[in-house]
């Protein structure tokens, strides 16, 4: 789908407000990939992510009459995504150890590189799951195609610099968690 111009976006919002179901369906279709990807990367449970992404669109539907159009629609939707993610996952998932799979798989030195990469990726996901929710969100958003840094700062209602600092700290923490794996 081609991105909408500001005027077309306003028109779409107006149609949604007027109760046009097709317009709202178009809105969902336009934003679902980014919303779902952002949430799925933050919560790391597909069915939960799907549920939360639907919650986001439910909130969008309820909130549209109050959307003043001061920010772009996508920024406003990101703000809802951020609220949903932070409310639902305020605590990091700390129960799972990064070494949980180590016993069941041979180490990277004894397997081919592809398998080692897969294992590393798995450990990365587990390490991300152990980060605080706000760090998970900035990591998820920053490395997601189509999500601009500025949009994230506006969505989180934080200065750009603060978002960057949070991202750097999140990566620092991740690096510490993975330190031994990357060497």
């Amino acid at each position, binding site marked *: 789908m081609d991105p909408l111009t500001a005027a077309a976006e306003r028109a779409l919002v107006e149609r949604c407000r007027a109760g046009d*179901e097709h317009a*709202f*369906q178009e809105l*969902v*279709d336009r934003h*679902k*990939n980014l919303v*779902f*990807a952002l949430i*799925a*990367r933050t919560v790391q449970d*597909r069915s939960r*992510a*799907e549920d939360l*992404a*639907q919650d986001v*669109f*439910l909130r969008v*539907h*309820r909130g549209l009459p109050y959307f003043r159009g001061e920010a772009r629609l996508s920024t406003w939707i990101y703000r809802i995504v951020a609220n949903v993610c932070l409310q639902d996952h305020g605590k990091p998932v700390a129960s799972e150890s990064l070494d949980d799979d180590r016993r069941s798989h041979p180490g990277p030195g004894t397997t081919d590189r592809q398998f080692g990469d897969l294992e*590393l*990726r798995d450990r*990365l996901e587990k390490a991300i799951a152990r980060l605080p929710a706000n760090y998970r969100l900035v*990591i998820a958003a920053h*490395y*997601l*195609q189509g999500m601009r840094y500025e949009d994230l700062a506006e969505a989180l209602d934080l200065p750009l610099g603060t978002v*960057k600092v949070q*991202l*750097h700290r999140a*990566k*620092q923490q*991740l*690096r510490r968690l*993975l*330190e031994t794996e*990357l*060497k």
Partner: protein
Amino acid sequence: MYCDEALDAVEAVAAGEMTPDGRLADHYATCPNCAAALGDARALDRMLQSRPVPKPSAQFTARAMTRVRRARWRSDQVLDVGFNVAIAAVVISIVAAVWTLIRRSGMTAVSNDAVDVMTSGLVTLVHRIGPSLPLYGAATALLATALAVWWWAERDAAL
């Protein structure tokens, strides 16, 4: 140049957001710890960039729309019930007010002594209820308005 300073800049350098100047570049070139940290940060950055992008299921839009419709229906139901309760309360209040007015204006006495009223003539009746006529009129108008709004809302919901 201290390692702390170099390590603080590792993430920004690895992400390409900062180009190390001469001193910083020299430090990364000569300090094995900081060079390793920069290497790790770059590797992490690459891994994060290559994370797969999860896609929603094919039924996502349909499911989201179903939830939206269900929520809207529930909200309409609540609004409808609330409106009907409000109208019922208004009607009951109006009926109670009219009944009180009738009692205070002595109309009940009139009905109990109808034969006397009939005999004393229509003029006496008019004299008795005359001062309260605007109140009766207002109450009737209020009742009619409430019923009209109720009818309008029900017709609007049926469309």
